């Protein structure tokens, strides 16, 4: 009998050290005595060994504390994960998926449950979805979010639409590197879900259903193997399926299925600076909100606050994470897809409407040194000065932004609350 077999028989922890146990010393003496008797009696060695083993086993089981029962064995539940292919429009880039968290149907389903389940909060009243609701394109449509204790945060919840494409760190200030890391943060944030991961993990272990879901998603053998890292991986898998449907008016135009209205088209030409031949100015939008997902995933000072020095920014944004003063006042540029559904705007939700946002940009920034130069050159220049867009041009841009509304995405049954 091997040591491992012995442990299983007695229900010991695998880490239990046999040769440090007093029972082991007693058993060893008995073993020597048995050897002598066996030799003297001339009994065949195999029988002798069997007897000795039995004595050792009995001695150990008798002397050590009673074995703890095997907790929550999940091995009866089949583990056969189904690879999950993320649905994306044909004209979208491939969705990055980390090698250490491959997509599975079971992982996505577990992640969806965790995302919508208030079990992740200290008083079981809030979940991830409390601040990221489908109807708000996975924002909460509030200037800043409020946690379980009624304390308001200082930043607006970011849209999770196409979040899988964000590969250059997450949150407004870039403080985490990927979705797996991000999913860990709100649980322990005192002004968000305000609990601890050990508490959450314990609740998940004790839950009648979650151990089975974790088994199906990750192949764990017992409840004890549920960890915060696995929970975060599952949530990240679910978040990676929050991809545009490709059915917005703009996408259908890109695919050649429909035409845009004139004002929408003019807005599009100015947004992407394609309107020079039509005497339309450059609205400079696409530099920060470009390409297919309409975010370059980079960090910018977009000229919201007039400051005298790098240290004057009230919210330092990226600089708060990097510690580099010249990063102060920079924030991640969010996607503008579904922007009409995700008001209010900016990292602190200071603007309620797209009109207010455009008014800000039409002011052409503050001129501070780390401000992105493109926010200072919107519209046609007049004697070296950029006055911004005219009211009708501004209206055209807003009309175009409305073509980015993707109701098929927010109504996608795959991303809805599974508990309703």
């Amino acid at each position, binding site marked *: 009998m091997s040591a491992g077999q012995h442990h299983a028989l007695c229900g010991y922890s695998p880490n239990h050290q046999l040769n440090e146990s007093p029972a082991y010393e007693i058993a060893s003496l008995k073993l020597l005595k048995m050897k002598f008797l066996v030799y003297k009696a001339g009994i065949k060695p195999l029988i002798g060994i069997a007897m000795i083993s039995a004595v050792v086993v009995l001695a150990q089981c008798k002397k050590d504390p009673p074995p703890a029962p095997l907790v929550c064995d999940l091995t009866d539940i089949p583990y056969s994960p189904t690879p999950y292919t993320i649905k994306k429009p044909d004209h979208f880039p*491939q969705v*990055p998926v980390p090698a250490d968290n491959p997509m599975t149907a079971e992982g996505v389903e577990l992640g969806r449950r965790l995302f919508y389940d208030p079990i992740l909060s200290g008083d079981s009243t809030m979940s991830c979805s409390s601040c990221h609701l489908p109807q708000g394109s996975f924002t909460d449509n509030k200037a800043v979010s409020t946690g379980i204790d009624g304390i308001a945060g200082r930043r607006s919840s970011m849209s999770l639409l196409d979040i899988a494409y964000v590969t250059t760190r997450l949150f407004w200030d870039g403080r985490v590197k990927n979705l797996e890391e991000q999913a860990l943060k709100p649980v322990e944030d005192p002004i968000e879900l305000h609990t601890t991961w050990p508490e959450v993990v314990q609740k998940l272990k004790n839950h009648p259903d979650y151990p089975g879901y974790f088994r199906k998603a990750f192949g764990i053998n017992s409840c004890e193997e549920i960890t915060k890292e696995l929970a975060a991986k599952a949530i990240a898998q679910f978040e990676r399926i929050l991809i545009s449907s490709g059915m917005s008016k703009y996408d259908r135009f890109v695919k050649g299925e429909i035409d845009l209205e004139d004002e929408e088209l003019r807005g599009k030409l100015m947004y992407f600076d394609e309107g020079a031949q039509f005497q339309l100015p450059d609205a400079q939008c696409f530099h920060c909100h*470009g390409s297919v997902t309409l975010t370059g995933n980079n960090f910018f000072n977009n000229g919201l606050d007039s400051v005298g020095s790098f240290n004057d920014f009230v919210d330092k944004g990226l600089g708060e994470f*990097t510690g*580099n003063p*010249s990063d102060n006042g920079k924030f991640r540029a969010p996607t503008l897809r579904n922007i009409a559904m995700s008001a209010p705007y900016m990292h602190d939700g200071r603007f309620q409407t797209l009109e207010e946002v455009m008014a800000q940009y039409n002011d052409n920034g503050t001129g501070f*040194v*780390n401000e992105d130069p493109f926010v200072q050159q919107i519209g046609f220049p007049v004697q070296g000065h950029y006055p911004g867009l005219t009211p009708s041009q501004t209206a055209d841009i807003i009309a175009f932004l409305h073509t980015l509304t993707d109701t098929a995405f927010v109504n996608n049954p795959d991303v809805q609350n599974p508990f309703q």
Partner: protein
Amino acid sequence: MILRNGKNDCENFHAENQYLFNIRTSNINKSNVSKFNIHKHTSMKNFAFFLLLFAAASFSSCKDNDDTDIKDNFSLTFRATYDGELLEKYKNYPYGDKVILFDKFNTYLSDIALVNGATEVKLSDIEWVNFTPDLAPNDKTVEVTYKYTVPDGNYTGIKLGYGVSPDLNAKSPADFPTDHPLYVESEYWSGWKSYIFTKVQGEVDLNGDGVTETNLFYHCGSDPVYNVATTNGNIAVAGTGSLVVEFDLKKLFTFNGQLLDLTVTTNQTTSHDASNIALGQMVMENFKNATVLK
């Protein structure tokens, strides 16, 4: 080939195996003499068999090591400078009688090859070299190093395609896997169906108060501004090799010995604007003059 203690890996491997063999033999001789004698004949046969196996494993291992070592033996580093000094974001540099600073510099390089007379050793189809990543630890621009596999030889220069070659520029981020340099969405102009070959951004002080106030941005792209040039230099590869390529922004803004006149508004910016593609072309063509081998 990786060298340790003056010997290559293969020699070290043999030496270590010989040492282990000696220990094993020694142990057998010292502690198991009687058993060794009893089973001498059998043990010797086994011993010879294991010795043969050992030798075979050693030789095959040496072959593998050689294959492994020759990979990625050439290191190519790109560095951004201003007047020979490592470029730093937001740092004021003299620009004639004015002051200039930079906050962004990245560039695509295509068809990178080492040149030896008429022979070329292709290193890469495309790389995106970002000297000013958002999350750099400080304002110093970063050095970007790539590893390539290069045969031994004395090369006479490096050939660089400044920008994205037309065949690749005909594609878009959706055509590339997620770890490809051309997957970077922020470097693609969907409206103009082109990658942004180079981004150089900064500010210049034109009113002479010592504080930069006028924006400069040179976002150059589209097929007409792509160009290829070879920069000469002695590049020796003997087992391993390395090369540092510097792009000096002062040289980039120097045309026929004169700094680009930044008081002229049309010299201050170019951003995919078809009406000002000439400036983009000038900048991209001047890259070869801004390229310094170290």
